[in-house]
């Protein structure tokens, strides 16, 4: 374990440097009056109104769990890699079958969409509207002005359905020019 000594020394030196830096900074740095705006969390200059939400998307947990599987695979592969010359063909077949099993599980994960981030990429085409944004497509999605709320198709964006025909404002040049209250932008 003699070979371990220099690494231990390095840990000590690096930690001493870091802690010493903190002490030096404490001694050298100025100390000013602390007030609420200074010690508050950064929110672009606005005091936060709510407590910090300690929640984040569940996909991060999922990634962490899948990572554990792969990390274990890597851990198992290291002894094989070190002893590869002695194990030769036997070791190769063993490791290939182990890798195949993990790979099948991985392919299953992928085919379940467990590693896909964000919404489906061609969501628009399946919702009935073409991918490209055209006048007709947008009008069909948000409905024409005057359509009763019950007759409108489901909308993607919250707020686009509020106000009669607000979403179609300015899209149809004829209507935008004709209807007085909606023409303030054009």
């Amino acid at each position, binding site marked *: 374990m003699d070979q371990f000594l220099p690494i231990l020394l390095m840990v000590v030196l690096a930690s001493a440097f870091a802690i010493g830096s903190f002490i030096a*900074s404490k001694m050298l740095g100025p100390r000013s009056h602390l007030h609420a705006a200074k010690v508050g*969390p950064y929110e672009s200059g606005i005091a936060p109104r709510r407590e910090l939400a300690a929640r984040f998307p569940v996909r991060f947990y999922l990634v962490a769990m*899948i990572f554990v599987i792969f*990390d274990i695979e890597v851990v198992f592969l290291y002894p094989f890699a070190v002893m590869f010359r002695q194990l030769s063909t036997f070791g190769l077949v063993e490791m290939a079958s182990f890798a195949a099993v993990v790979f099948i599980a991985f392919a299953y994960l992928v085919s379940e969409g467990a590693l896909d981030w964000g919404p489906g990429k061609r969501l628009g085409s399946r919702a009935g509207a073409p991918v490209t944004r055209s006048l007709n497509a947008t009008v069909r999605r948000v409905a024409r002005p005057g359509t009763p709320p019950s007759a409108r198709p489901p909308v993607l964006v919250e707020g686009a359905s509020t106000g009669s025909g607000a979403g179609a404002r300015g899209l149809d040049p004829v209507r935008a020019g004709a209807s007085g209250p909606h023409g303030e932008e054009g």
Partner: protein
Amino acid sequence: MLAAVAAASYNGDPVFAKGITLGVWIIELVKLVAVFAIIMVGVLFMVMYERKAVAYLGNRWGPNRAGPKGWLQSLADGLKLFFKEALVPEGADRWVYRAAPVIAMVPVMVSFSVIPIGDTVTVAGYTTRLQLADPPWGILVMLMASSISVYGVMLAGWASGSKYPLIGAVRASAQMISYEAALGLTVATVVVLTGSLHTSAIVAAQHGGVLYHWNVFRAYGLPAAIFFVAITAEMTRPPFDLVEAEEELAGGYNMEYSSIGFALFYLAEYAALVTNSAFFVTLFLGGPDGPYWHTIGPLWFVIKVLAVLYVYVWIRATLPRLRYDQLMDLGWKKLIPASLAMLLIVAAGHISWRWGLAALSGSLFAFILLSRAIEVGRTQVEEGAQAELESP
């Protein structure tokens, strides 16, 4: 064959063969201070090198005031940060907040200590290697460091008690662990070629001949490329720097840090850059081996590290940032299967070309299977989104 002989004869640093005497202590302390100085000077140099090179690539001058042609700018910045107020935000967990920069910095420093800068030297009757430590599990120190630095980032974001650092830290840790598997598999490929975890043995196995003994060629190139991409993502360097995407996160996990805490994170980041470039050189580019003049090993090493560092700067100046789903797709669906396949191909190719061909065809079959799985997975996600859309 050469590699096998080299692996068998390696048993750590020969300076410890006769026990730990006073002379050994002195040698170790000198080496310790030297390695520490190399990292510090390397960081100061790299910060400046990057700023200058990015400036020239963007047709600017870059910093040119402090010292000759501005080369002391990073030193001046570092010293300045000592004289700034160390502020702990009110929502922060005081001790974790202070410990996080230390946790981020120490493993990087430690991992540099296993990098062989040259061959052995003999000073006053003591023969020692030009590397601080040569333990039997040398290369694992690198993986250890990259794993522990995730904690530094995660704790910094969590302990800051603020919104943006938390999001930045969660992103960072997901990104780092996503690329860690690919990183581990490519390092395992090198270990297969060497048969030893000693960094000095890995370097010695690449000696001799003109370049073609280097692992980048012996491993058929692809693992080196995967390793490079994986450490770039691991360090959250551009184009994988979503962690500090200033347009959306206002600075990322170290946003609430000021004064020396920020300086230590900066130090850790650039020390990791220098260290990982040195690891790339050690693992794939032959370490201190050069095409000619083998006696000037350390010089070859420095030249190669500088070349790798330039590639990082070049990438930063050239490539736009990836989107988060692109980042995750690249890590999980491309790099991990590719590195696993390459590990088996390299191992099989080492036994005989028939086995190599079998592994290659098996990998191609797996590739087709995976492409189909990706296609199915995408449809699943789309259908799920569609069902959600249609539900009242």
